[in-house]
């Protein structure tokens, strides 16, 4: 299947699947360590949704590629330079506030992306978006409540949330950068131009940050290199070392 669109489509599907894979992995690191039992359970639900979405995206990616790779093969047997997730998502969890701020900043983008994808010309993508957008609607609601609650909580929780926002804001811009892959997706009616999602995102994030009494950083500098795979942070390699270890150490085993 080497129609002209298959290479960018494979790239695009890896971007979606790697985002959920990497974030799902990060959230799963919280299991057993959250501030309160109710949050522990809620975070695990989010991680489970994301792992489920990963399987859907990467299985389709494997099909499109046509080289016989499954979601597991893609998840466990690619190296850092093959990953296409946003830099934001591979950042370490930090404290609970940093984790929830990262979640909120991503969920707000993720939901608008999925909402647009429900109208994709690619039926498989539209179907995944349909299912995932329900899950992500809930993720966004929960993350929004937490960002507002902690931003407008105690003095300590406020300053921790502001610090998390300041730390993560430089990773927001990458979500809205358009490149050749995006252009190919727009041309074929598969996915929206990410740049067009920015105004609505800014409005939503602005409203939530105001309610949270947090100040949006002035500088819109954006780190990049995650979704293109050109330059990930050092953190991703460590994550993959852990995540892929069994598959790499025992390549002939089935689990």
């Amino acid at each position, binding site marked *: 299947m080497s129609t002209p669109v298959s290479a960018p489509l494979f790239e695009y599907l890896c971007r979606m699947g790697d985002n959920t894979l990497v974030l799902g992995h990060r959230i799963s690191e919280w299991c057993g360590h959250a501030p309160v039992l109710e949050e522990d359970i809620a975070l695990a639900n989010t991680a489970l949704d994301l792992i489920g979405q990963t399987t859907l995206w990467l299985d389709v990616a494997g099909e499109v590629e046509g080289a016989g790779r499954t979601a*597991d093969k893609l998840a466990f047997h690619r190296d850092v330079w093959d990953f296409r997730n946003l830099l934001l998502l591979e950042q370490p969890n930090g404290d609970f506030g940093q984790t929830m701020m990262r979640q909120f900043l991503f969920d707000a983008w993720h939901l608008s992306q999925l909402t647009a994808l429900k109208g994709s010309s690619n039926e498989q993508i539209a179907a995944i978006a349909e299912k995932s957008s329900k899950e992500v609607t809930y993720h966004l609601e929960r993350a929004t409540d937490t960002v507002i*609650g902690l931003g407008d909580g105690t003095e300590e929780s406020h300053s921790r949330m502001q610090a998390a926002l300041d730390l993560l804001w430089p990773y927001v811009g990458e979500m809205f950068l358009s490149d050749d892959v995006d252009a190919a997706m727009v041309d074929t009616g598969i996915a929206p131009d990410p740049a067009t999602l920015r105004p609505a995102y800014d409005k939503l994030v602005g409203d939530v940050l105001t309610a949270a009494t947090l100040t949006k950083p002035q500088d819109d500098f954006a780190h990049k290199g995650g979704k293109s795979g050109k330059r990930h942070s050092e953190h991703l390699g460590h994550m993959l070392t852990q995540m892929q270890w069994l598959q790499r150490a025992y390549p002939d085993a089935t689990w």
Partner: protein
Amino acid sequence: MYAQMIKSTGEGVKSLDEMDPQERAFQERINAGGKIEPKDWMPDGYRKNLIRQIGQHAHSEIVGQLPEGNWITRAPTLERKAILLAKVQDEAGHGLYLYCAAETLGVTRDQLTRDLLSGKMKYSSIFNYPTLTWADMGAVGWLVDGAAIMNQVPLQRTSYGPYARAMVRICKEESFHQRQGYDIMMKMAQGTDAQRKMAQDALNRFWGPALMMFGPSDENSVHSAQSMAWKIKMNSNDELRQKFVDECVPQAEYLGLTVPDPDLKWNEERGHYDFTQPDWDEFFDVLKGNGPCNTERLAARNKAWDDGAWVRDGLMAHAAKKRAAKLAAE
């Protein structure tokens, strides 16, 4: 079991004749299979014992998240990762249900948590053992959850209503845990040489600690007799341990694995397997805090609690602000 070595506060089991009318009515209700509910009168000893037992059970679920949580980030496939995460999440849920049941007896979850973190209250010895290979996820599900289920199924009929209801919910959810563990063991046992080696090694390491989960023999224990009269303990430790061995041996055989007990053999006359007792000195060492992972487990729980304080405070403060704003607007 998940509540090992619960010291009863009573001095022995009173006969109905020795009881005042209130206690007698209470005991007769239990004898008749009735339930005791939170607002009902109950002897102090019953209340105290239950708080300790349910609390210890809850703590075991929470600390029990850690040894399996240790492998979530290293699970070998996306599906295994999701299954393991869902399982460990269930354990958090089970801890939550049990804390709520204990709370109906007049203690708070925070108080119970503090007693766990200070080392005043215990949790099951089994969770002080390390999980070293992926096969340990199989062995824990198969043996540890298997042993837990032995105890929890009869506790669905325990005399205290909220505890019994929590156990019903827990047993319903837990039914997949042992099966997923055995499923991992099957894959490993039928896998490569390295996988088979991991599976045997996991069985070797977890067999003794699993037998210890039921606690030392309590055939002659006054404490156990009182708990059984109150129906907060339904079977003797030896009875459950025997049942566990009888079920596990054929399961191990099916896997082609060897139970690490050279004296294990079927006793035709008893209709049970004869087996070697686990190392009880080791058990008491673990209870005293000298297990391989006691320090890490408590440190992890303390860290989660301390690191989470600002979150709990922050959300509480925000809720108070919202309430105040709403009142002011009315």
